[in-house]
């Protein structure tokens, strides 16, 4: 069971909003890079976010670059899952590969600051603040297996190959 506060963002949050290209020189210094997480969408996010919280987006979350640093800095900020109405393909795969769940659901029902409780096993999201209950789309089995191992590299370390 995951618990935390929702940090709400709008539609089309790009990987440039999440971690701008101008910080590319910090990509080998992850703690420093992570201080700029989502800076161009909400400059105060890094100060507000707490361990276990959720990033809640709208449509097409994570569009743009293939930079795995985007989900990586969100994970480093302590975020336990990303919720969005829809998500860009590469970002989705990258997040799962880092062991960070991405849940597709109707995020219009969630307000900024709401307390959420998420059960990954049953696929339910409970908004404690407004009493609303949501379900999220099924994650493909191949990705669930990667998520279960904490990401793609731990999965490969354990299994030595990819199985579908």
């Amino acid at each position, binding site marked *: 069971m995951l618990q935390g506060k929702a940090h709400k963002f709008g539609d*089309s949050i*790009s990987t*440039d*909003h999440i971690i*701008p*290209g*101008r910080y*590319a*020189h*910090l*990509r*080998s*210094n992850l703690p420093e890079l992570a201080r700029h997480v989502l800076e*161009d969408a909400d400059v105060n996010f890094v100060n507000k976010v707490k361990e276990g919280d959720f990033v809640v987006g709208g*449509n*097409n979350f994570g*569009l*743009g*670059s*293939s*930079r*795995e*640093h985007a989900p*990586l800095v969100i994970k480093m900020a302590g975020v336990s899952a990303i919720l969005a109405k*829809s998500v*860009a*393909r*590469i970002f989705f*795969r*990258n997040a799962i*590969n*880092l062991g960070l769940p991405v849940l597709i659901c109707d995020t219009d029902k969630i307000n900024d600051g709401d307390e959420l409780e998420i059960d990954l096993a049953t696929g339910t999201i409970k908004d404690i603040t407004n009493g609303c209950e949501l379900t999220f789309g099924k994650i*493909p089995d*191949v990705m669930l297996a990667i998520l279960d191992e904490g*990401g*793609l*590299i731990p999965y*490969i*370390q354990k299994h030595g*190959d*990819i199985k*579908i």
Partner: protein
Amino acid sequence: MGKTLAEKILSEKSGGDAKAGDIVIAKVDLAFVQDTTGPLTVRQFQTSGMSLANPERTVLFIDHAAPSPNANLSNDHILLRDFSRQSGCILSEAGDGVCHQIVSEAYARPGDVVVGADSHTVTAGGLGAFATGMGSSDVAVAFGLGRNWFRVPETFKINVSGELQDGVSAKDLILHLIGKIGADGATYKSLEFHGEAIKNISMSGRFTITNMAVEAGAKVGLFPSDDKTKTYLENEGRGDDYRPLAADKDAVYEKTIEINASELEPTVSRPHTVDNTALAKELKGTKIQQVVIGTCTNGRLEDLELAAGILKDKKSAGNVRLIIAPASRRVLLDAISAGYIAEFVEAGAIILPPGCGPCLGLHQGALGDGEACLSTANRNFEGRMGNPKSFIYLASPATAAASALTGEITDPREVI
């Protein structure tokens, strides 16, 4: 039942019958990274304990920060050079050019599966390769296993009739399509290009179109491999890499989108999303402080030829910085031979070394507060060119060159 290009390639590379929606494990023919995603790939790869499956089909490109603007990025470059030396994989050095251009010139073959740690890996779809962007971990796995898992995408058939008119190019076509279907209009899908107009589009134009497939969310953009592909590969000294490739006549498409190329006009994406399109003539009078012609979208010889044709014997407007970024060393050499580079310099341009240049906001043309840039690149996201308080418009080389002359967004048909 017939197969789309994506189904055909993934069937062959997975050794099975791949249909849209299936998840397959497919052989990867080429895996590459660039200098902002490569260091993480190398670290993930080393953590995994694997060794390279195909060093001669594994390439590290130094193109995003080339030459390096600071010590941190220089150290990332050292990491890539060391890994190349130790593992035996190929290194493409600073100054050689943008990964996608060199992959097209030298590596990708029709029918290949290509993965790159860069979203614009889709570019190589222009010559019939199933080429798609992935993150560092996924590319590290392709480095080590020589294969990865793929969901076989559903396909949109983009049927382009008619003929592009003077002053209108492949860039206008793809901007029009993205404006029509939206920045998430093709998420997870394959865009497959068909029709009379497509047969006549040059390889350079095909790469411009597939380069931007990802800007509609697509996993891959695919052209058939035909006579134009054959001639292109022969000119690159790779005639043996050619094989004809087309979708089956009875392939099943999720939807068909019709575009009449004859009706298209010079098109511009306005800040801050690629699908926020308008016609160049509707934006007349919009002041710009910088023009960029180049990048993996429009930095090929044909693009520079078009721009030089407009700028020759003229001067760029005094209040505009005109930046030219050829896509590769080869393009730069050819543009020097053809006289375009001298014409650009005489018109007031700054010539950058082959590479990504100012496109991603690292160096070489970052924008100031409130400034606007008209660029031939592929993204205009907030902050993309180094400053969230700036504005990026995207257009064709012809629109960019015409606008450089006037200092405001200009329909190129006014000057040609």
